[in-house]
Structure formats: C-alpha cells, structure tokens
C-alpha cells in the first residue's frame, strides 16, 4: 500500500470539515495508507475525528526552535522533511488560500508536478480533473514524475466515514530559516463570518441590493441557514460589499450544497465561481435573466420581498 499524505487544515475551533472530503478521495476505496499531517498541536481531538475517516497515522509536525507555524516558507520545508521521513510521494490538501500556498511551495521546492483546485483525483492513474478557461471546460491532467501533489476544491467531494485504527506520533523538523520572508502580522476580518469557500450554504446578492445596508436582508436569511453571504462583482465594484465576499471570475470559487443568487443576472464570469454548487436557486425580477436558463429553481420575484419571506418561514419553523 502506498503512503498518501493529507495536509490537514485547522482553524480556531479545530479541524476544518473540508478535510474529510480530501481524506475520502485520498483513500481511493482503501487502496492507500493515509497519513494525516497536522501542522499545529492545538487540535487535541484531531486523532479521534481523523480515525473516523480512515486515517491510519496522524503526524503532528513542529519545527525545532520555532514557536508558531505561520511562516509558510518554513512550514513548507518542514512538510517536505516529514514527507521524506515517512516516504510520502503523494500529498493532497484543501485548495484554500492557506492550502494552495503551502502545496505550491512544497511542489516548487521538490520540483514536482502540482494541480490545484481539482474537482476529482485518480491516484492510481495519476490524473486529476480541474477547471480550465474560468470554469467553462474541465481538463484531465496527467501528473508525471515521482511526486503527486494536489489541492482539492473545498466541499466538492463528499466525505465518507471509514473508521480504522489510528496511531499518533509527533515529528520535529529541523528547518533553516533563510530570513528572506517573515509574517509580521495577521489582521483578522472585522466581522466574524463563515468563510465563503467552506460554507455549505451561500446566499449571494447582486447590484439590485443597492447598498451595503441592504445586505443585512441576506445576512438575516443566512443566519437561519448557517450560510455565508456572498456578492456579485457588480455589487462589489459598486462598493456594497468587500472584495473578500466576491464570488466569480475575479473573486472566489465556491462549491456549496446550496447557492441562492439574489438579484444576480448570471453572467458567465459569475458562473465561473459557483457552477459546481450542488443546487442553485435564482431569485430575479427579470424572467429573461440568464440565470434562469442554468439553475435548479427559479423564483420570479423581488428579492426584497422573497428573501424576508424565506427568513420568516425558516424562523417560524425553528
């Protein structure tokens, strides 16, 4: 059995849900031996969670003489050392902002092939599929060479439990700091909201929302669904929402179970960022809006009336 490494992403509240889909695809129906690489040890209950999904070994990585693992350059070098120690040639992770950065550094240092934002992975054939041309086409890519490094689009692969025996061990990497880069500060976002790319449900608004104030209507509905709030490019360009909320070509690529587009006409560039959502709902006053020709449910109506009505019903049935 080949050793397959999975880079585990943690947040303040422990292991991110999105990891389990990555582990599921790394398992390839039990053909691979899964080694989870955990970067900080504050996720104390991680072994218990990871063993539910078929991880046979959990390696918690620290760096000799380094207290926090926020410097991606040092972390990438520590990951490489760990991969070599455990004879890991295939490394999978979440294609999030942090995951993309670390996986790309690892691949660049190893001079290894890399594919990010993958929607499926086939380890035995050494192929992946991923978006090309802003989501308009799907490319099948062969990874040639000794290594196989890839990042998987969050939420795109459904997690399937596969409980097993798990051992946990620490690994202390010895990494030289070149001093060429350091993290000075991490600025937290002003409002504590659910990360768009990891959300199971997203409710997004377009230009017709007409002000940042009106996004509250979406937030109230989002609170009922544990959803994140997104925005179209035109709403962001008009200053109604920050760029971190933008879904689409020049914003984020998301793949939730449910995407509700409110007052979004459905331009190609918007679809580039959300077309792999499981269910798409469009709410629009224009019956000819392009979104109605490529979504699951279309509501012909005014979002200022429909969204509060949804919120009200959900609130009453709580």
């Amino acid at each position, binding site marked *: 059995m080949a050793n397959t490494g999975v880079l585990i992403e943690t947040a303040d509240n422990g292991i991110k849900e999105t990891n389990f889909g990555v582990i599921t695809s790394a398992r390839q129906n039990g053909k691979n031996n899964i080694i989870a690489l955990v970067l900080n040890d504050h996720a104390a209950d991680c072994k218990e969670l990871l063993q539910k999904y078929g991880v046979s070994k959990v390696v918690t990585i620290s760096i000799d003489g380094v207290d926090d693992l926020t410097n991606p350059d040092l972390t990438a070098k520590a990951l490489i050392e760990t991969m070599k120690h455990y004879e890991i040639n295939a490394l999978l992770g979440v294609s999030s*902002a*942090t995951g993309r950065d670390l996986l*790309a550094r690892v*691949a*660049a240092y190893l*001079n290894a*092939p*890399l*594919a*990010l*934002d993958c929607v499926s992975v086939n380890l035995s054939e050494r192929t992946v599929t*991923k978006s*090309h*041309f*802003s989501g*308009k*086409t*799907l*490319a*099948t*890519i*062969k*990874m*040639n*060479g000794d*290594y196989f490094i890839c990042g998987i689009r969050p939420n795109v692969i459904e997690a399937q439990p596969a409980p097993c025996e798990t051992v946990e061990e620490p690994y202390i990497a010895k990494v030289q700091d070149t001093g*060429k*880069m350091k993290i*000075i*500060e991490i*600025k937290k*976002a002003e*409002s*504590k909201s659910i*990360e768009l790319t990891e959300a199971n449900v997203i409710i997004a608004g377009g230009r017709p929302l007409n002000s940042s104030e009106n996004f509250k209507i979406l937030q109230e509905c989002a609170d009922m*669904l544990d959803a994140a709030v997104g925005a179209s490019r035109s709403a962001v360009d008009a200053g109604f929402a920050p*760029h*971190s909320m933008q879904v689409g*070509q*020049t914003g984020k690529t998301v793949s939730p179970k*449910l995407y509700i587009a409110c007052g979004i006409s459905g331009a*190609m*560039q918007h679809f*580039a960022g959300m*077309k792999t959502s*499981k*269910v798409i709902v*469009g709410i629009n006053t224009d019956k000819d809006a392009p979104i*109605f*020709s*490529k*979504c*699951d*449910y279309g*509501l*012909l109506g005014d979002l200022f009336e*429909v969204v509060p*009505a949804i919120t*009200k*019903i959900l609130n009453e049935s709580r």
Partner: protein
Amino acid sequence: MQIYVCVKHVPDTAANIYLTGKTAYDESVKFVANPYDEYGLEEAIKAVKENGGGEVVIVTVGPEGAFSTIRSALAVGADRGILITTDDQFTDSMKISQALKKAIEQDGSPDLIFTGKQTVDSEGMQTHYHLAAAFDMPIATDVVDFKLSNGKIVVEREIEGGARQIIEMTKPCVIGATKGLNEPRYPKLPDILKAKKKEIKKIAIADLEILVSDSGTQLLELQPAPEKGAAKMIEGDAHKMAEELIQLLKNEAKVI
C-alpha cells in the same frame, strides 16, 4: 529599479470556448493580457515611478499572436518586451517558469518580479512559485497591498474569511497580484502610438536550452464543463414562492 512582469496571452474571459479536438479549441476568439497580470503590471509601473525610476520589462511565453498582448502592456507604460515563442498554450508550468527564468537572467538583474496570482486559461496558480524557487527568491501571492520600505517589501495577502497576512520580504522577490491591489490604467492614444516604437525581443523557446525533465503536468483532455438546464420556475406572491422553495429544498433537493 529593474522590474520584470510576466504576462500571459489568454482568451478573453467573456469569450465562448468551442472545443474542436481532444485538447484543441477554436482559437479565433479575442485574446487579451491575463487580467491578474494587469494588476502586477500597474503596480510595477507605479513602483518604478515612485522609487526614482528604472525599467519595466514584460516577459511572455506564448505564440506569435502574443505580440498584441505585449504591445498593450507597452501602451500603458512598460518599457520593452520579451516574447518567448511556443505554439503550445498549455505548456507545463514548470517548463514555463524555467523559460521565464532563463530569459530574465539573460536580460538583466531583477529587483522585483510581478505576475498574476493565476492565469484564466489553465488556472494553474503555480508558475510564480516555480519561478521563485528557481531564482531562490521569496514569494507571496494573492497580494492586495504592496509597499517598499527601508529596502524591504511589505505586502498584504488575502487569506480565509477576509483575514490578511502581512508579509515582509527581502529584495529581489516574486509577487503574485490579484484584484484589489490597484486599478489598472487604460492606455491613451498617444501612448498606443509610442508603444509601436518600443522594443520587443523574440526568442524561440528551444533557443533557451531549458533542461527537459520527466516530471510535470500534461493536459490529456478538455471537456465542456457540465451545466444545469433551465430552472424549475416558481411564481406567485412572495410568501407562496418562499414556502414552495423551502419545501423543494427540504424534500426534493434535500439540501437544507
């Protein structure tokens, strides 16, 4: 300051892509400079202006048609261009980064290298990392703010949930630009005319004598991405529609 900006010649994001073969598509669509690279270019032009002058050089790996993309970059203020010619649009990122490195090395000594955070055709998100590793330079990508202070580079990079990392790097370094960094300028007519006289050097990729490695990525096939069909339409008053939608999402789609 000597700044190199890597720019790719890509189909316009608004263009429809018609597949014509296993990895081939109808290339008669409009091609433009990769949108993310334009943020890098704008920042490079500003950095040279604000830091006592220098030169901005565009480096492109692409077909002969990429001359038009380099000209458009020269029209907004870059000084000259280098086109490394290849017919393959989907050349492996590792090979492209080696070609960029060789061409830049032969040309001069960079203080900074700007790229976009990704291209909009192959969406690889990695050429700049391979380039930085090849040069042994530090790198930051998804950069939304850039400053030069006391000879060091300080950038802000967008991470999860709207948070930002503030990173300090030594020069030279590689910066992957994204939306939010600046507003790219539009070319003015006199500058478009002036750009026609600026130098674009052409080098065939074979002449760079890049070491060919067995490892890398290879595009096997392109397929149209699956799209949903027409919506099941729900009409009526707001409350009725809301009720019906919630019922469908619960019982038919089973997503809430």
